[in-house]
């Protein structure tokens, strides 16, 4: 967390990028006839994008940053297991990412006179917790993935806005073609985001239990996948000694 305070990218990630997307959303939605359901996407969308951005970029690069800083070997030499070190990094990233909602909510309230969406407190709280778990699972899986295959980071970084589409951060995924919805359904944040937005409106379906179950189930699958990747990272770092060179 202390490193994040002095990193310009980390500060931009929770202040500037969420503000840009919130401002864009609210400028586009700022017209007669807009519904409160649509407005909720403008108000919360920027925050969700900021939260996701910090998670995948900042937390996902947990091992990669050690390699850049030349401290990879030390990380593997200490008696603390790798997963415990990464756990701390990812949790720090999640906390940092949550700050993204502060500037976007402030912009909506003070800049656009947009009243914050009415929230059904309990479902919102549970959905937000489920979203955090899903982000945790994705970040925990991406961390070894980015370390093992550097091209994976470039690809995901290039397709960052595509990820916003598939996760439904600023509009419902039900707008997408069927095949895209099927792909989106494989991402845990998609289901949690759906539940978060459902708790801000009385319209549409409210199948919270199904969405929460899908989020948790997929997150578990991602964590299981991550455990194999961590094994591979350990092997590359300790047995073949190739990781620092990769």
């Amino acid at each position, binding site marked *: 967390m202390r490193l994040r305070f002095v990193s*310009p*990218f980390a500060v*931009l990630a929770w202040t*500037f*990028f969420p503000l*840009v997307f919130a*401002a*864009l*959303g609210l*400028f*586009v*939605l*700022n*017209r007669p006839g*807009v519904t409160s359901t*649509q407005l909720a*996407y*403008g108000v919360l969308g920027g925050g969700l994008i900021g939260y996701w951005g910090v998670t995948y970029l900042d937390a996902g690069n947990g091992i990669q940053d050690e390699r850049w800083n030349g401290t990879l070997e030390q990380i593997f030499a200490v008696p603390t297991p790798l997963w415990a070190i990464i756990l701390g990094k990812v949790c720090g990233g999640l906390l940092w990412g949550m700050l993204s909602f502060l500037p976007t909510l402030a912009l909506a309230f003070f800049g656009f006179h947009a009243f914050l969406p009415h929230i059904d407190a309990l479902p919102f709280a549970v959905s937000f917790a489920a979203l955090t778990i899903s982000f945790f699972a994705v970040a925990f899986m991406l961390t070894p993935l980015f370390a093992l295959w550097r*091209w994976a980071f*470039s*690809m995901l*970084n*290039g*397709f*960052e*806005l*595509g*990820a*916003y*589409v598939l996760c439904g951060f*600023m*509009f*419902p995924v039900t*707008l*997408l073609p069927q095949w895209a919805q099927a792909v989106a359904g494989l991402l845990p944040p998609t289901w949690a985001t759906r539940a978060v937005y459902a708790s801000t409106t009385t319209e549409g379906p409210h199948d919270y239990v199904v969405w929460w179950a899908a989020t948790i189930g997929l997150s578990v699958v991602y964590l299981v996948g991550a455990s194999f990747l961590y094994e591979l990272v350990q092997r590359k770092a300790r047995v073949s000694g190739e990781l620092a060179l990769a």
Partner: protein
Amino acid sequence: MRRVALEAQVFARSTWLQYVALFQWATVTGYIAYKVLLPIGQILFFVEFGVFATGRQNALYFALGNALQLTANAGIYGVIATVANERQYGTLPILLGSPANRLITFLSRSIVNVIDGLVTVIVALALVVVLFGLDLQRANLPLLAICVLVISLTTAGMGLLFGSVGLVMRDSIVVANVVYYLFLILCGINFPVSRLPGALQLISYGLPLTRGVEAARQAAAGASLIHVSGLLAGELIVGAVYASCGYVLFRLFETYSRRGGLQEAY
């Protein structure tokens, strides 16, 4: 005459070296990620959001705006990175120690990225035609091409200005991120500039892209050169002002960074 030929030679060599050494997307992975996936992702995101917010009838407004804004990917990120990468690779002191003409060195940083910007927009427009059925039958295609060229030049002009900051700033690529995303709000890419508050409208017309995108939208609707000449002239003036300021800043920061030993700070 011989002097001009020699300087042209330096310019050509410098441009070539920019491409082989500093064009950061000259790998298969880099190109696919940032020149194929990024345009697809950006266009899909903003078109789907536009459809959700304003209805299916406005899809092309968002698609065309974002396809044109992608020039900034090359013009801003690419040009700023040419200085930032010199620092990262440790070649900045050598560059600044060379006797090469500074104006030539400065301008050669943008050429590859202008060409890249053109290619990016062509790819993006092709995507818009295929995915969203952009109808270019009524469009004034030669004029649209001129608009794209002008936009590529002016965004590179602004890239040169902020690239100069890379002489004294370690994380100048942060500036590229800020500028690129501000363009999405301020330049009439996703909603008309008239929706911005008055002060922001003033800033908007002081930026590259704003007039160029407006001209390109009119060209796509079939307008003639006479109709958009004012917009294009304004766009070129804005780009030239930024490039000129960039050159002045480049010289100032060159001296400043040499004095403070900032060229090797990383």
